[in-house]
């Protein structure tokens, strides 16, 4: 069996928390992203960049985790932006009608700029 764990690194850049998500956001791993979001929000974080550069797969469970995190960070007075999405991931965002809901940036640097 492949490793089921989803690797998520969180790196603090100024006031913004960058979550680097690795590999797949599927029905097995997406709850881990939801849990990570919740834990960071509880510890007082409210601004997030989701770095998708390593994400090769997303299903509705992954979309749900991203949407829930974004809603909660907005409710906490912050925001969530996304960067470095691969074309196949953007395609799923488009089909799901997610593209207008989020600010998408090509790079992490541009995403960070949006918080200034």
């Amino acid at each position, binding site marked *: *069996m*492949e490793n*089921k764990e989803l690797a998520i690194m969180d790196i603090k850049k100024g006031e913004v928390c960058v979550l680097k998500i690795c590999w797949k956001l*599927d*029905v*097995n791993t997406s709850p881990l992203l939801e849990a990570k979001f919740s834990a960071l929000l509880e510890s007082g974080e409210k601004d997030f960049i989701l770095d998708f550069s390593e994400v*090769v*797969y*997303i*299903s*509705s*469970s992954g*979309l*749900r985790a991203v*949407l*829930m995190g*974004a*809603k909660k960070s*907005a409710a906490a007075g912050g925001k969530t932006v996304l960067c470095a999405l691969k074309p*196949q991931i953007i395609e*799923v965002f488009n*089909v*799901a*009608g997610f593209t207008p*809901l*989020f600010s998408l940036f090509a790079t992490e640097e541009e995403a960070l700029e949006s918080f200034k």
Partner: protein
Amino acid sequence: MEKEFVANSNAGQQCVILENRIDEIRRLSIIVEEFFGEHQLPSEMLFKMNLVFEEIISNIIYYGYEDDTKHEIVINMNLLNGILAVEIKDDGKAFNPLANPEPRLDAPLEERPIGGMGIYLVKHLVDEIRYNRYNNFNILSFRKNIRDKG
């Protein structure tokens, strides 16, 4: 590098039997990946088909059963002339996922419902899909032209 698909060069069939456990979806994705490799099918399609499988199977596992016992979900894949035809059969309660209302895609972030996206994605990623109830089985069949990039 993606291998070029050659029409008619391959035909194939595969039957996969899953248990009604969520971790079986990962096993299926590996089998589908092998099937795509064996028949040199485009990798963009692999992502889409695995997404379609995950949504349909997780829907069955989460909502299909009214007991806690083991059930089988039988998947038949049939590739011919660049068309992948799939039939997914389960013995859960009668449920037509295609009859669910479509989610509101125009709602702003705060009002956007959290659920209901899975089957919507499926409908938009396959060319044709239909549901039948037959002999106490739910049968969901779909077709996808694998030669298309879209």
